[in-house]
């Protein structure tokens, strides 16, 4: 966390309200995000208790598993979820536009442009918290190896038809969420935490209710609270029954809710079901079916009461985020998400098997390289899009902004001299510049490179107070270095082919410029071999083992306790 964010947090403590940590929105938000608020059963892996899901904030679909340990009910839940999520995803998958991609021609080995389909937009999934992202990944893992009766008539507990497909999509979304800056699957706490600094620690920011309370305390049901008070209320306040007024955003539920409300309700449901099974005639069965339905309705109401506040909170968070203008590069990163979405669609259409349990060495290395590259890209783009982020980089000496005080034309010493103008910049920042260090500025969206020549000579009369001087005392510590704050740079490129630089390609005296020490665009790393060429140091080629489709998970009688 940079000192600038720390200051914002301290300011939030003082004012009782979250402070901006960004001036633009750094993530793309879809017009129709699919919001998913799941709840899980404590102690069980991948046993959902219920969920609210949908694209309409006023009419979410409520899905409930009245007895989470019952495999059939769990499958029914997953089938319902597939019926809501898959049509949404497929609607985006069907609408495509033409795009170009460079591919290596298998025959000639040359890089050629190929025309391919790119989905015009991708489905965006929003969950309340980071734990929600993990749960999406877990759900995906639990479903993608299931077998349907159609795939394998012998399977003892066949899954409903579309469940394995949903598992593959959720796995893809869960994987994509690990790529920095991606927006296919977003956690609301991460989104809000990126754009606001609250007066609490990042650990406490994981609580969606508390985080929102800091950002918009006026939404708290009790009026007139400060952010800190509203956050405390969201975290801890309980009603007369000992239930949290603001239920946790899940997927884990509050133990007090499990023990006092849910467990008795599930017990009543179980009793009603046993009674129905033991009914001796139709009349009795009718009556007991009524009792069972009532018990189920009760559990549905309980799940609804715990998910609805979170559902509303997620949409309020979306409202708040939409008030911020979208960062200039967010759209470009979203296009990468669309490519990712399209490629997964293509893999499914091509009939490829589900993602393996463990990636092979080449895939794993590729994923890691992608994440590293995207992290660097995200950091650079956020700084370019947002002066507040750039301020952090300037503070840490990775960028500097200032006024051009002099431009001297110079040329390279080659047969055909090219322009290499010397630009003198006066700055209050303290960049960590080495000799001949490369610096970059954004020129019409493209990076222009300059080279650091050295500090300007101290006697050339620049100390005349051009207006960017220190007004708050930071200058008292300066003056320890000669020629402090006045730098000479040599512009290296983007000036056209002629002897004279193109108009506007060289800064002029009086211009305000901002140079960064980090590169704006990321180069791709070295190409990795095909999986068949995996070296023995990395396990060798996948061979015959990979050709066999992955087995379904072993199922035991008691895997549902």
């Amino acid at each position: 966390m940079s000192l600038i964010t720390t200051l914002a947090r301290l300011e939030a403590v003082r004012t009782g309200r979250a402070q901006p940590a960004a001036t633009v929105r750094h993530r793309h938000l879809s017009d129709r995000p699919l919001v998913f608020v799941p709840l899980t059963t404590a102690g069980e892996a991948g046993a959902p208790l219920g969920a609210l899901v949908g694209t309409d904030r006023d009419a979410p679909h409520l899905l409930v598993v009245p007895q989470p340990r019952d495999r059939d009910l769990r499958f029914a839940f997953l089938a319902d979820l597939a019926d809501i999520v898959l049509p949404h995803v497929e609607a985006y998958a069907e609408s495509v536009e033409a795009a170009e991609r460079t591919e290596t021609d298998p025959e000639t080995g040359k890089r050629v442009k190929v025309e391919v389909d790119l989905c015009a937009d991708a489905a965006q999934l929003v969950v309340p918290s980071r734990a929600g992202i993990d749960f999406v990944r877990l759900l995906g893992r639990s479903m993608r190896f299931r077998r349907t009766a159609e795939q394998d008539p012998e399977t003892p507990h066949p899954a409903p038809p579309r469940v394995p497909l949903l598992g593959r999509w959720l796995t893809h979304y869960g994987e994509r969420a690990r790529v920095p800056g991606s927006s296919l699957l977003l956690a609301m706490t991460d989104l809000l935490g990126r754009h606001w600094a609250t007066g609490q620690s990042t650990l406490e920011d994981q609580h969606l209710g508390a985080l929102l309370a800091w950002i918009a305390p006026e939404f708290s049901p009790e009026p007139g609270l400060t952010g800190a008070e509203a956050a405390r209320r969201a975290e801890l306040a309980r009603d007369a029954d000992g239930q949290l007024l603001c239920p946790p955003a899940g997927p884990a539920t509050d133990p007090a809710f499990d023990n006092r409300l849910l467990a008795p309700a599930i017990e009543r449901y179980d009793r009603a079901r046993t009674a129905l099974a033991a009914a001796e005639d139709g009349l009795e069965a009718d009556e007991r079916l009524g009792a069972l339905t009532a018990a189920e309705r009760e559990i549905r109401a309980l799940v609804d009461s715990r998910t609805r506040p979170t559902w509303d909170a997620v949409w309020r968070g979306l409202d708040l985020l939409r008030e911020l203008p979208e960062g200039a590069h967010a759209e470009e990163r979203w296009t990468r998400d669309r490519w990712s979405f399209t490629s997964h669609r293509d893999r499914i259409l091509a009939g490829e098997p589900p993602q393996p349990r463990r990636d092979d060495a080449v895939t794993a290395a590729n994923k890691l390289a992608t994440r590293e590259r995207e992290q660097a890209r995200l950091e650079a783009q956020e700084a370019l899009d947002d002066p507040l982020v750039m301020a952090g980089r300037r503070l840490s000496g990775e960028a500097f902004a200032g006024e051009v005080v002099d431009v001297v034309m110079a040329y390279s010493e080659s047969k055909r001299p090219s322009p290499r103008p010397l630009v003198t910049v006066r700055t209050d920042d303290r960049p960590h510049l080495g000799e001949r260090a490369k610096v970059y500025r954004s020129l019409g969206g493209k990076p222009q490179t300059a080279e650091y020549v050295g500090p300007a000579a101290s006697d050339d009369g620049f100390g005349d107070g051009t207006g960017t001087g220190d007004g708050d005392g930071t200058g008292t510590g300066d003056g320890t270095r000669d020629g402090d704050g006045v730098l000479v740079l040599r512009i290296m490129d983007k000036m056209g082919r002629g002897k004279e630089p193109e108009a506007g390609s060289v800064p002029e005296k009086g211009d305000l410029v901002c140079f960064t020490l980090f590169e704006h665009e990321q180069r791709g790393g070295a190409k990795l071999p095909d999986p068949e060429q995996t070296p023995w140091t990395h396990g060798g080629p996948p061979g015959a083992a990979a050709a066999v489709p992955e087995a379904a998970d072993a199922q035991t009688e008691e895997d549902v306790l």
Partner: protein
Amino acid sequence: MDKAALASALGSPSAFGQSQFALTRGNAFEAKVKADGGAELLRLVHEKLDRGAEPPAEAGAAVPDLTAAGPEGRTARTALALREATGAPGAWTLLDHPMLALDVAGSPAFLEPDAVVVHPDGSWTVVEIKSFPMLDGSADPAKVGAAARQAAVYVLALERVAARLDPAPRVRHRVLLVCPKDFSNLPTASAVDVRKQRAVTDRQLARLTRIEDIADALPEGVCFSPGLPAEELAAAVEAVPAAYAPECLSACELAFHCRARSREAGAVTCLGRPVRAELGGLSTVEDVLAAARGEAGDPDDPAVAALRRAARLRAEALAAAGPTADAGTGAAAGGGSEFAVGAGGVSACR
């Protein structure tokens, strides 16, 4: 002392609790692992830790009865069973829920590992049974870390027991973590090396201030009974110094109380330990903000100088972003220079 009750009496009840679903599932899983005289558990120990030894299915396994009255009695019974098992080499022995004592800051703490296995070669292994799943061979690192720290304490306690025997048997530093496999409740296991956690815990235990010393430092007549009025109780708790940090929230029942006190005092550690680290000698919110505004603090202090630069840069950036952003620090940039850093790069906008 019941810290949860104390926290409730102070008006900041802890948020800990366990769902009965998790409890049921955890107990059912442990019972399944230990069924049939621990056959499955011993098979896993043999497979993961001691493949050279004779398999328990052939060598036979003993499961001694460890029931006794009171924790001291059970500790003594456990020590006896361990000695007997070590003295009879060639067989496997499973100690189900033994009781161990460990000296913590001068007072004995009783510990109950899920199981301890004595190998045929006389060495001892701690077994930890957890109900979080091991998915495709890997489990949640945070939970595994917590389990490893817990097991390390058991290893230390076992080493104290072993030291009293002659020759002292070896306590293995690789413990067995047993978890449900994937989405089933079939047990699977993994050996976890706890040498590091053991060393850390050992050093921390040695450095702990002894309870008597803490008690001596307290004023006469301090009482932590939850029955006392809240103000008296708060004063009593106040007599014991505490260094709150957000990490406490996941570990201590009194954390919400300490957080409230810490916030009242305006301590910057409330925002996290790293925050405290980068602010040098400034430890309260008001000090830091005053220093950032240039109202206080020594400008030659590097922390103060950095703060002022940060405040100036932040105000400048917020001013550049327009009226939506709230330039709250009041330390406006000198000369009112404005930068517009947009998509198309930097352009002059004066």
